[in-house]
């Protein structure tokens, strides 16, 4: 099955109905799938911290949110993750394109890639890394875990997982 469709099926099966996205080439298929699903309100955001604010509001309104973004966004959102999502104890699955890993053609992406896991660890954010196709089989359990513990949770998806550029 198409991996983008499989990911969004897991979202819907876990009652995720409010998804904000910041565009990414690797995640383009997932974003298209999110847009296509009637069960999901898709709201593109201009910046990832704005998106996390939208998700916080949607969560308090009774919806399960998720954000789709690139790993560079970790640099943008540390304050929001700490003083909003974590401080108020809100769940937030973050489906992240892990740019700058093996097969990356753009050197600058590697600069953020080398800090990504260290930053997530420093923030005590549970982090999962999808490198092979079969890793995605854990997504359903990761989403259930996220809404069980009310934390932001990172799912890093690298170029090998997506089948290269």
């Amino acid at each position, binding site marked *: 099955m198409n991996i983008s469709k499989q990911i969004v099926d897991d979202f819907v099966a876990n009652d995720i109905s409010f998804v904000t996205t910041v565009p990414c080439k690797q995640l383009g298929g997932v974003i298209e799938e999110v847009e296509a699903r009637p069960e999901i*309100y898709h709201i593109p955001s*201009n910046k990832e911290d704005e998106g996390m*604010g939208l998700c916080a*509001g949607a969560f308090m*309104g009774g919806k399960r949110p998720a954000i789709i973004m690139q790993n560079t966004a970790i640099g943008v959102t540390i304050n929001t993750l700490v003083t*909003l999502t974590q401080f108020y*104890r809100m769940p937030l699955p973050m489906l992240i394109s892990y740019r700058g890993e093996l097969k990356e053609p753009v050197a600058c992406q590697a600069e953020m890639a080398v800090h990504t896991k260290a930053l997530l660890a420093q923030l005590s954010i549970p982090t999962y890394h999808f490198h092979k196709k079969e890793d995605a089989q854990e997504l359903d359990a990761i989403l259930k875990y996220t809404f069980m513990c009310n934390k932001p949770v990172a799912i890093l998806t690298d170029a090998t997982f997506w089948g290269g550029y």
Partner: protein
Amino acid sequence: MIRSDILREIAPILRDQLVVCNIGLPSQELHMIDDNAANFYMLGTMGLSSSIGLGLALAQPKTVIAIDGDGSVLTNFGTLPTIANNVADNFILLIIDNGSYGSTGDQPTYAGKRTSLAAVAKACGCENVIECQAAETGKILREAIDSGKMTVIVSKCESGNIKVPVITMDPVVIRDRFMKAVAG
């Protein structure tokens, strides 16, 4: 009139609505004037009041008023196109524009100089944008609630602060009681 005068005047209107209140002095003032479970106080994260408010309005049917400041809107300008393109008719963004960063000591903002937030909101595609003077805020807010149309209000007031205690309530308590008010 300064921000706290506006908040005092509109408190009876806010009381029946879900309110998301901006970080710093606005939240501290609202908390002092009329603390209740339907107020969500931001204790950090400057700029996201309008985003939290929009997310909340899109997720459920009750009216949501996001109280924001000129400085906070300037720091999260991307919010205005998102609001304009995701119309929630139960959403009101009330920008209290005192032309300064009040919570940090009244340093001037560009909104107090050449930049018109109402003009920016309109340029971003927001349809119902009203700029008013501080004293009219209550009347305009009431009309916006009754209109059932998404509205952005820019209330121009003087800069200045009153002495207020910080909010010591635990954020999880703020969030929990707010969610019960949302669901109730």
